[in-house]
């Protein structure tokens, strides 16, 4: 059998062309890298309106009337920082919320130090979150507020809503682990393998760098090689470089996690899977998910390697609420907030859903008067499913040839889909 010929001349010609292009790119890149770059994160203006220890409550400034009468409190995870929701002006969940007329508050957990090592989940939920919720209720006169949680912050919000249902009107959970008995996510597998007692006893707080190293190891081929190859290929593109640097800033801005909180979270959740079984105890009280009777919107990512869908999709079945909705987006753990595709689906959906459930006469139902402010009209209510009346929306997920989540290559964010 004749062996097909290799077009060696073509390969060599392409290599020569590549070398030429690289030289040109590097020349341009030096101009870009040596000039001033705009890489600031979280530029939407806000005021710190409440503070307890290291924890601050941000209130985003609005100049017009509020479309919803119920304020929204966003609780981020203790891992990484809430600046991810306001990464850059054109991809900012915060901006979308603001433009929709939400009265937005966000909890900034700050940077835990050695003095925070003994703080438990109880302190975070029943002191900090509860303190912020009470402050907002008092400040706005609202009897109940809307609560939105992200990842571990979502788990805290679930716990809080079960312990203090009288203070929460609507609950939104995003990439929130609630059921930990799955072998799908690497994090779930690894968390079972580690000796958390030894780790916490040694370090006090879990160092952010240790966690970041763990996250990089989730997919070293993409996160430690391909990501930087992508940067090298686009480093003559100013917008790309600025976005890339913003993302790098966010990724490696990793506060330590208070030791006792980490210990409890790993033992009670990853090892014991107590939350979904209504066996978790926080502050001496059992967390009964059936007490979550307020409407619940639950988002998760189909390609989330950190918190896989299996860890998220059981929550709506476990709560006592009859108004629940699951939304599985075709993206990863971070892409849900920052990819251009989900920017159009994620935040606007939350605004619509909250508007529908804002209760009494709201500014949302009035026509927008302010210039440049989008007032989202209430969409038809979600259909209730049979039996418990759950509305579920799980769109079919188109996949790329490589089997990965489709993402925006121009910003190099595809690599971050692994997180």
């Amino acid at each position, binding site marked *: 059998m004749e062996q097909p*010929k290799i077009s060696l001349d073509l390969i060599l010609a392409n290599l020569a062309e590549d070398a030429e292009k690289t030289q040109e790119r590097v020349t341009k890149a030096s101009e870009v890298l040596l000039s001033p770059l705009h890489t600031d994160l979280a530029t939407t203006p806000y005021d710190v309106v409440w503070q307890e220890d290291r924890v601050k409550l941000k209130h985003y400034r609005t100049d017009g009337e509020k479309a919803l009468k119920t304020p929204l409190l966003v609780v981020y995870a203790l891992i990484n920082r809430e600046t991810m929701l306001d990464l850059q002006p054109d991809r900012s969940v915060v901006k979308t919320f603001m433009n929709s007329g939400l009265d937005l508050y966000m909890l900034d957990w700050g940077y835990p130090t050695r*003095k925070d*090592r003994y703080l438990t989940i109880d302190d975070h939920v029943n002191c900090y979150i509860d303190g912020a919720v009470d402050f907002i209720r008092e400040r706005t006169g609202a009897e109940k507020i809307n609560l939105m949680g992200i990842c571990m912050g979502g788990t805290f919000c679930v716990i809080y809503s079960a312990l203090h249902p009288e203070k929460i009107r609507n609950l939104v959970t995003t990439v929130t682990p609630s059921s930990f008995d799955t072998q799908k996510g690497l994090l779930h597998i690894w968390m079972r393998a*580690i000796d958390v007692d*030894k780790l916490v006893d040694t370090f006090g707080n879990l160092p952010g760098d240790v966690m970041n190293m763990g996250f990089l*190891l989730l997919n070293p081929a993409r996160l430690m090689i391909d990501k930087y190859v992508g940067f090298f290929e686009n480093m003559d593109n100013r917008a790309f470089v600025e976005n890339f640097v913003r993302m790098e800033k966010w990724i490696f801005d990793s506060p330590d996690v208070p030791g006792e909180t980490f210990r409890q979270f790993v033992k009670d959740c990853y090892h014991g899977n107590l939350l979904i079984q209504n066996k978790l105890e926080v502050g001496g009280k059992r967390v009964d998910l059936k007490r979550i009777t307020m409407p619940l919107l639950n988002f998760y990512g189909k390609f989330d390697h950190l918190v896989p869908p299996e860890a998220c999709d059981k929550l709506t079945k476990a709560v006592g609420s009859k108004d629940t909705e699951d939304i599985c987006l075709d993206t990863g753990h971070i892409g849900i907030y920052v990819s251009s595709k989900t920017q159009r689906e994620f935040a606007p959906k939350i605004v619509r859903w909250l508007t529908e459930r804002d209760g009494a006469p709201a500014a949302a139902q009035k026509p927008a008067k302010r210039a440049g402010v989008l007032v989202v009209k209430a969409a038809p209510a979600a259909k209730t499913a049979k039996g418990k009346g759950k509305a579920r929306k799980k769109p079919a997920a188109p996949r790329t040839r490589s089997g990965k989540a489709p993402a925006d290559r121009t910003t190099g964010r595809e690599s971050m889909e692994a997180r």
Partner: protein
Amino acid sequence: MSAEQPGKSQPEFPLADWMKQSQEFWTTWMRAASQPREAVEPQESPRRTTGPGAARGRVQEGWETAFRMWQSLSAAASDPTSADAAVKGMETLPDFYMKLAQAGWLAVMKIQERMVEKAGKIGQKTEAYHFEAIDQNLINAWKEIYEEEFRQFYQIPQLGLMRYYQERFNECMDRMNLFQAAFSEFLYVLSVPVEKTSKVFQEKLEELQLEGKIPDKSRDYYQLWLRILEGHYMTLFQSPEYLEALRNMLGHLDSFIASKNSVLQDVLQFLPVPTNKEMDELIKDLHVFKRRVRELERRVKTLEKGSSPANG
């Protein structure tokens, strides 16, 4: 006591001659030094307990005590039995150093042996996407040698006032070595997918070549290599071998940091700064107080609400 056997000479302490000579020298010197005082001060006069004369007397007494000790020591050293013991003791020192050197040499030889073995394995079939039999011979070689040959030196019982400090320092060194071995093992496990990927990549290229589909752009080669590498890592990260290496590395890291902190704690105790241990105790107390205050605040608020006029 055994009598000296005829025909068998006693071992002579190597420094006996020098000790004898120095003893004679210091005896002469001491006599000369004490003479003027005896000439000036009559024997029957009471000894002065204060003033410069008394100070000189204490110095001289000190000299005399030291001299008598030296006399006793040199006499003991000149004793054939003691000399025998001392010589034997000194003979063991080279033995000790020899053992240490032997252990080091053995380690080098064993590592070299493993390297040769490993070199012989190059070219053998690499099982793609399987990590059950990760070849860790080289890493294990150092680990075994350290545990068998070197570790015992750090476990020699320590004596005296500083024994606990020395023990903690030795423990820290021991744990650092164990961590380094575990870390090397972990890094090796992480490097295995790269090795396997090269092999699979080569096979893929051969396949593509046979099919006449060989890529002509460097980016396509890179993407192919990256996909294979990613696949290998995904398989590795779920394997029990990786989990064991991770657990082992983290366990040794924890142990090393804990023992390093103990040594630092010892050092910090000598400085006018609070140690981490002390700060942690204080922080814990504050934490407990804050919780109590918060709980009391809640109760007060509840009581206030209950006793407000609106509630009757």
